């Protein structure tokens, strides 16, 4: 079911354009080294090889709905082992971004985790472990709070959890930078 993207570009072109550098996606031999190297392969809807095949076939929605990019742990084994030097990990990030923008994902756990993390960074300039984990757990796995209670108590006792987020001095500058970057990203896609 090849489909053509709204602006006349194919889905393949769209993915390549949204990936930094040259991902060499057109070189894929369908050898499967990527999937065979993937530590979370068994939990994925499609192996990276199959996903690349789907991108080439223009299967936009099934590719963006696939849980595969969200199970990518960014270990880069696929990328260093690919005989064709395809930037598979970067492609996974591109598919995540496209799925979020098109609201095409069935399980919101991973996208929401990214959003919560980014929210802390955008407002403080630094990551804040306690705020991130507690917000994320309360939203997606409230009972998980009890499951990790032991670990949390241990981390507090060992002084490894900070209770106050730190804000960088140049937060206003950072916010201006990020706002401009988002504006440019939106223009880039038109």
């Amino acid at each position, binding site marked *: 079911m090849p489909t053509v993207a709204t602006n006349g570009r194919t889905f393949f072109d769209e993915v390549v354009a949204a990936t930094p550098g040259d991902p060499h996606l057109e070189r894929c031999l369908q050898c499967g080294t990527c999937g065979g190297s993937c530590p979370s392969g068994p939990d994925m809807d499609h192996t990276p090889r199959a996903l690349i095949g789907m991108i080439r076939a223009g299967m936009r929605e099934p590719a963006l709905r696939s849980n595969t990019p969200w199970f990518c742990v960014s270990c880069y084994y696929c990328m260093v082992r690919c005989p064709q030097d395809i930037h598979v990990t970067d492609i996974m990030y591109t598919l995540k971004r496209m799925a979020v923008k098109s609201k095409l994902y069935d399980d919101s756990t991973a996208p929401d985790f990214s959003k919560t993390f980014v929210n802390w960074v955008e407002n403080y300039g630094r990551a804040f472990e306690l705020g991130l984990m507690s917000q994320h757990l309360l939203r997606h796995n409230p009972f998980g709070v009890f499951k990790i209670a032991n670990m949390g108590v241990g981390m507090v006792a060992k002084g490894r959890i900070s209770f106050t987020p730190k804000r960088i001095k140049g937060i206003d*500058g950072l916010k201006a930078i990020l706002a401009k970057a988002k504006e440019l990203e939106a223009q880039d896609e038109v």
Partner: protein
Amino acid sequence: MKYSYFPGCSLERGAAAYPYQQSTEVIARTLDLEFVEVEDWNCCGATEYIALNRMAAYALVARNLAQATKNDGLKEMVAPCSACYLNLSKCDAYLTDDAALAANVNAALAEGGLSYKPGSIKVRHLLDVVVNDVGYERVAMRVTKPLRGLRVAPYYGCLVGRPAFYGQIDDPEYPVTLDKLLKVLGAEVVDYPMKAHCCGGHMTQISEGVAFDLIRRLVKGAADYQADLIVTVCPMCQLNLDAFQGGMNRYFKTNYHVPVLYFTQMMGLAFGYEAVELGIGAELVDARAALARIGVEVPQVEPPAPRKTRRPKEALPMPAMPEEVAK
């Protein structure tokens, strides 16, 4: 030797990897490494920002590179965290390769009064600096208490060796630099087959089954080779293997106990420093038994002092039941 230094959020005081910072400061002093912290640095975005917005993710990282250029004369920036190292070096590499991306990122940076010329800063991992700039010989000269009798599993994880945006500092499949370093410190290094495999990264927060599976492989691998402890070069790896080892044991009904320490802590011990100076004792999987094998004592972290009774002694006596009075 003088470098810019990017600690990253996990190494801040009170954060999960503060012991890594403490031990890094100690070994830097010993090895005459001078680290000048990048002024008002920000988070590198980990693996999260790039999942939402490409341009903002690159601008976020590029702000750090731009801030680093303010440290006059220092072209190299050291990151002890493998994820920060990856993001910073990847950003610089792609800004160099992709002129359109670099132009957009600079347009964004200009809003904050900054700019960055790709290639002006070279990002280095702390392990790379220790083994290549300081070198094994100079490390060996500082060893006063060799870690003789300690079996260690050298654990690199992913990002220090893969995908090597700046060229290889070690083999992506079978790295050896940490093995050699630990041998120089006098430890017995096991040929750990899982040494470059993934700790699961953020998966503990997204799918615990996947995360615990990955953590188990690593912990079991070290236990199978009878390692006394795992030595790591990354805060995320340490957190996953240490703080989630208990949860992993409950999940699989196993009973592994493999402590996880930073390579800088092992260096500090071999240089003759006390465990407390190196932040040892903050791990959740107790390392005391393992370290006792080499005569290192780790003082027990004092439990919080019991709350003082609010009632002062000189206050009027509380009414008591007759039988209590009789006692």
